[in-house]
């Protein structure tokens, strides 16, 4: 136990030294990242004071605005970054108390819109561009009359670890994106279960191509 703690301390010291050296070589970037860290800590404190259901872990780097609205639970893991993407930051909207958004560690969430009335699970190391993640067809009438119809009802979303959601893609209810996979630009996934390490493309997505096979074809 003690040895483990010593190891952790030495690792963190090494990281600090590495960061210091980096900042000496590129001072502007260091200033930017430290400002982002300060902004992130401000967001952590702000949401701790105003909303009990929102929990963001330290460190949180916010290079752009983060807005979280609604009564649902939101969890964001360690070491997440919010970059500006098409002049938009991270926006999370929840409708009811049961709805929950769970985001893992080391995510880069630039310009993601998350509109949730059920559950949205995003695992570690996920990278997003300006995307829409919405677990029902029509957000405004999720609890309304049209919500009873099969096509419009709320379904959970699962996004596996180390996956990449590309520009202007939509992830709708019932879609399962497995680990290491890529969603192509402009693709819309709805009630679709992909395979591991594959490319999902098309509007709506109908087939997932394994990336290893694609590499062979390109050669």
């Amino acid at each position, binding site marked *: 136990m003690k040895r483990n703690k010593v190891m952790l301390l030495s690792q963190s010291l090494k990281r600090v030294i590495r960061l210091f050296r980096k900042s000496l070589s590129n001072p502007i970037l260091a200033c930017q990242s430290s400002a982002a860290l300060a902004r992130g800590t401000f967001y952590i404190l702000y949401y701790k004071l105003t909303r009990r259901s929102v929990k963001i872990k330290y460190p949180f780097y916010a290079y752009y605005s983060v*807005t979280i609205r609604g009564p649902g639970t939101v969890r964001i893991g360690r070491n997440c970054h919010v970059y500006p993407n098409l*002049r938009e930051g991270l926006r999370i*909207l929840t409708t009811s108390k049961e709805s929950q958004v769970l985001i893992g560690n080391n995510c880069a969430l630039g310009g993601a819109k998350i509109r949730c009335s059920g559950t949205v699970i995003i695992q570690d190391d996920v990278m997003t561009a300006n995307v829409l993640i919405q677990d029902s*067809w029509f957000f405004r009438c999720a609890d309304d009359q049209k919500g009873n*119809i099969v096509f419009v009802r709320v379904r959970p979303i699962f996004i596996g670890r180390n996956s990449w959601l590309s520009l202007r893609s*939509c992830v709708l209810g019932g879609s399962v994106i497995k680990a290491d996979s890529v969603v192509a630009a402009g693709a819309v996934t709805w009630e679709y279960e992909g395979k591991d390490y594959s490319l999902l493309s098309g509007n709506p997505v109908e087939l997932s191509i394994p990336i290893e096979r694609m590499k062979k074809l390109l050669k």
Partner: protein
Amino acid sequence: MKELLSKIKSTYYRIRYCALNRKIYFGRNLKIYGRLEIKGKGSVRIGDNCSITGMQGERDETVTLYTHSKHAVIVIGTNAMLCGTKIGCMHEIEIGNDVLIEEASILDTDFHSVERDRSSVLNEKRDHCKVRIGNGVAIGAKSIVMKGVIIGENAMVGPGSIVCRSLPPGCIALGNPAKIISKLNSSS
């Protein structure tokens, strides 16, 4: 609190747009939670009990109703709900009652010709370019409705889809171009 703010906003917009311009008409009991922007010389008519909102927490919460010519007509029925919708009209756009439109954009022109100088629109007739959206239609976010499209009653268009051909009543469509996935039963 929210209702009071919406009432203040709606009276403000009524004074701003309807007082000077006779071509713009707002119905009774209009609720405005977001922002509304009307531009151009055409006529705009919004029915009773409509609500104009924007998605919460979004930077751009405005509903825009632009008319690009004198003869342009935008008609919105009763009980309609617009959330961050963008409408650009040259000829005529007709939206029915009990409609839900989220962050979609509706256009009834191409704005430019395919000639090299891109000057003015060629061969656009009013009857061909008219957009009509029936009663009880729901249109999802990020979708686009192109010119000359007629969407039937109670149809649903999913998010991210692009509608360039007209859809029959009671159908469910998704994709680019929007394809009919299935039809609603008349009983439900």
